[in-house]
């Protein structure tokens, strides 16, 4: 009664799975961009905003950082309709991923702001830089160099987290793998192949991020 691997029953679905990987990647990219913007605003408010706004932002960040992503999306998908807000599956998951990523990226970007030393600004002023030139040539390059590695890691984490979308009816990679599994019942084969898709997704993303980091921000590192 040994289990016999039969990848042939799953290979007809490779393009179907690739379509799911594409949806997962779309979700990750959009959630990352929205989350980055939320994080930037929240980090700015936390560092430079008025006290009431700081308290509101900190409450949001503490709530998100201390609750599971799955629970947050359950709240958006199943609880908000009781208050008259009915979001479809894709939007609910996207908003959940973006809000979650926003809280994490707020902390990352706050650390970036704090990494700027007063001496750097003073040195720029001594050299006769205007305020705009100081920001353009001293502050921004410094922050980007500090933020780039943790933000890259956050993108990979978001890509992995898109698999939660399957629970809410989004037909991304994991959802499609479940569907194929329920037709073929070839779990080992189906989930091995979907794992390879995820690995390829993250390796490609890591390689792009590594190359951009290496040549634009002179960040030394490696994909593995």
């Amino acid at each position, binding site marked *: 009664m*040994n*289990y016999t691997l039969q990848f042939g029953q799953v290979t007809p679905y490779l393009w179907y799975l690739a379509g799911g990987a594409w949806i997962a990647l779309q979700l990750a990219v959009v959630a990352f961009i929205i989350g980055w913007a939320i994080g930037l605003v929240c980090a700015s408010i936390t560092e430079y905003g008025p006290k009431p706004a700081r308290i509101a932002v900190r409450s949001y960040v503490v709530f998100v950082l201390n609750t599971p992503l799955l629970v947050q999306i359950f709240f958006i998908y199943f609880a908000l309709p009781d208050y008259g807000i*009915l979001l479809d599956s894709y939007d609910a998951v996207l908003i959940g991923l973006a809000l979650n990523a926003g809280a994490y990226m707020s902390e990352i970007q706050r650390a970036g702001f704090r990494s700027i030393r007063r001496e750097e600004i003073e040195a720029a002023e001594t050299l006769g830089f205007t305020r705009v030139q100081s920001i353009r040539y001293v502050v921004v390059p410094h922050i980007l160099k500090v933020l780039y590695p943790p933000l890259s890691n956050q993108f990979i984490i978001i890509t992995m987290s898109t698999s939660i979308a399957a629970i809410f009816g989004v037909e991304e990679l994991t959802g499609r793998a*479940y569907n194929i599994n329920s037709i073929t*019942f070839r779990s080992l084969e189906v989930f*091995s192949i979907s794992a390879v898709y995820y*690995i390829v997704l993250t*390796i490609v993303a890591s390689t792009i991020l590594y190359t951009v980091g290496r040549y634009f921000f002179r960040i030394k590192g*490696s994909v593995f």
Partner: protein
Amino acid sequence: MLSGVFRRVFGAAALIASAAFVAPAAVDARTLDEILASGEFRVGVNPTLPPRALFNDKNEIDGFEPEIAGLIAEMMGVKLVLVQVGSPDRIPFVAAGKVDAVMGAMSRKVDRAKVIDFTVPLHSENYGIVAKPDSPITSLEDLNNENITLIQVRGTTAIPFIEQKLPKAKLILLDNYADRDRALTQGRGDASFDGIDSMPFRLAAFANTKWKIIPVPEWGITYSSLGVAKGNDTLKDWLNLAIYELHTSGAIEAAWEKWFLSPMASKVPVSPYF
């Protein structure tokens, strides 16, 4: 420099891919002798399918299937061990030998029978449409409409039928029936086409929502059995005899009425030949 990076990238990808494709063989299913020797009969049930199985007020798995599994274990003279499974993973669980037999509303289907073996039928499954009371839906034909959204559970019997015969309908696939019911209640879709045997029990749990249940007997009745690992004939043969005795003694029908709050809609024809 980049060529070195790509060599490492592709080398790692090849290593990972080969590891995935040379997956280890699954654990062997246990024969009847091995189950008897171990003193434990491991049965997979799905507690998200009340009243087939559910968590009772002591947070223990209870319901129709655990009760039948308990009777079978008693006849076997061993201890029953219930293992929680879900609709998508119940067949992989038994195929991989993680449970000796699986219940969880195991409709006998030819595709499933390529992977696991089925015992003789335990009960019938009757299908129909569940919709809001003000819905204009009255038949299966009404569902094949691009303005209709069906909310279903992944991995269940009706999905291949819906994909082939109701291609115009939009489909939302959720993880379990509780989520399906909640999503229907919230208006995320128009209807669901699935088994309706459990609806009297489920209606009691959703007292504030009035449902319209439209039986679709022309779709056909399916029969649910216990699923066992492919080729595990010693266990299957014994289970067939046990289920026959449970049918003829009236134990299955009595447990059904107790949990489903009504008699089985279509009786299982019982034969001494199997």
